[in-house]
């Protein structure tokens, strides 16, 4: 591993630490984000070259997908589009305006481009054009949070002790010695087939059955099951379906009406996405391996992330102090963690049987649907 690769992975890992910290902050809206994870990007913007920057952006998106478990669902495309487009917009702006713009302006542009591209991709793959209803709210809130982030970034750049060390050419994080987790190939294959079956299935009732089975698999895989995000997703789809009536009117809400066809459409879309998200969660925990430079960078970034999280837990002081402390502690390699490598073959068999059931329901939904 070259020093550059180590640096790339370490910076990517620091974005992961910040996005998981962000995850702990309760949010009233599912789309609302402070964008803490963009802080390291803002700090390195000036000093990093384009190829390294590209890998950092990619690792940030993939790493977040692995930590949140959305990597193998189409929600990942939304976050990938946001990360890449805003990343490049920020870098471009900095190289164009140089000293005539501060981190505040860059952060605002980053948030704006990120929100716009996320809305566009979300409208293409899940929500349809109705999602643009949310544009003013998302963009407006994004401006506020990005100004706050920019101010914080400027202050941290001046007063934090880590950025100075971080930006120096001599900065070289210690290579972690964490063990890698072995990939569970048969689980990966079973889950990829199950994803095909989820995409193939038709109608809300079969998809409900499939979603339940996917949660069973997720439970067996040992990933935490959350009910709030999927319920949020379903209700947002149902609300948006009000704007596109289709079929017999069930109830009217003011000038809008809940219609049978659009409800069925929203449920089908929502349940398919929920099943897919759950499959993605299980797939992440089967430790699939990426090949090539990106693969080894990802493994390195994830182990740095593991160390950073442990360091953060032991660090003391205010939040910026703890982040500073965690970064130093991980870069100096003063703490080593080992991945817990416990796997049971029997649970793989259970997962494969459940995946076969999913395929069965999917085929049945097409035959009798």
């Amino acid at each position, binding site marked *: 591993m070259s020093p550059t690769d180590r640096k790339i992975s370490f910076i990517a890992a620091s974005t992961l630490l910040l996005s998981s910290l962000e995850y702990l902050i309760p949010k009233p809206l599912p789309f609302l984000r402070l964008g803490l994870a963009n802080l390291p990007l803002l700090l390195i913007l000036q000093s990093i070259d384009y190829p390294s920057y590209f890998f950092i952006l990619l690792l940030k998106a993939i790493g977040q997908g692995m930590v949140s478990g959305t990597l193998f669902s189409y929600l990942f495309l939304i976050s990938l589009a946001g990360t890449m487009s805003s990343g490049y917009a920020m870098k471009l702006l900095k190289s164009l*305006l140089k*000293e*005539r*713009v*501060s981190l*505040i*302006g860059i952060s*605002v*542009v980053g948030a*704006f481009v990120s929100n716009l591209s996320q809305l566009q991709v979300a409208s293409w793959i899940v929500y349809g*054009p109705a999602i*643009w*209803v949310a*544009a*003013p709210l998302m*963009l*407006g809130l994004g*401006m506020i949070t990005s*100004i706050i982030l920019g101010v914080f970034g400027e202050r941290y750049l001046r007063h934090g002790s880590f950025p100075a060390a971080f930006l120096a050419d001599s900065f070289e994080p210690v290579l972690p010695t964490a063990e890698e987790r072995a990939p569970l190939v048969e689980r990966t294959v079973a889950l990829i087939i199950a994803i095909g079956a989820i995409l193939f299935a038709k109608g809300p009732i079969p998809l409900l059955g499939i979603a339940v089975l996917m949660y069973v698999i997720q439970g067996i895989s040992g990933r935490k099951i959350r009910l709030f995000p999927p319920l949020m997703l379903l209700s947002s789809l149902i609300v948006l379906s009000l*704007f*596109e*009536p*289709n*079929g*017999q*009117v069930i109830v009217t809400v003011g*000038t*809008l*009406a809940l*219609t049978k066809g659009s409800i069925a459409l929203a449920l089908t879309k929502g349940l398919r996405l929920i099943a897919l998200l759950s499959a993605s969660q299980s797939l992440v925990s089967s430790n699939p391996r990426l090949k090539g430079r990106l693969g080894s960078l990802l493994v390195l970034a994830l182990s740095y992330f593991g160390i950073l999280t442990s360091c953060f837990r032991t660090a003391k002081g205010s939040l910026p102090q703890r982040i500073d402390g965690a970064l130093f502690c991980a870069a100096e390699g003063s703490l080593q963690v080992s991945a817990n490598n416990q796997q049971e073959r029997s649970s793989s068999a259970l997962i494969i049987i459940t995946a076969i059931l999913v395929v069965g329901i999917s085929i049945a939904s097409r035959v009798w649907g």
Partner: protein
Amino acid sequence: MKIPSSLVGDLVIILLCAAAVGFFVFALGQNTGSGYVSVQTADGVYRYSLKNDRSVTVTGPLGDTIIEIRGGKARIVDSACPNKTCTFQSPIDRSGSFIACLPNHVLLTVVGPMPEEIDDVAY
């Protein structure tokens, strides 16, 4: 604290983005409640967005009435009425305009967002 040289750049960016947000608010205000066609039949009320092209079959006492939505307009393609007057009506897209298949108890009415046009309903 001295005024940083980047202040102008930041302000321009913030103003441009705020203007863009303002544009989205304005565009949203122009586009409240997309137009739909309301279909009243013997067995209930149906609603279809005019945005999506589709063909819909509803059933009345005499049989099926086939409605077609295409290019933001709705018309009746075929109906089980004896004289089929409704199939000869030109497609409707203005708020308040309607097509009725009286024998088969089917009434098509457009609701929002295009303003009413008196010529369309003058008979």
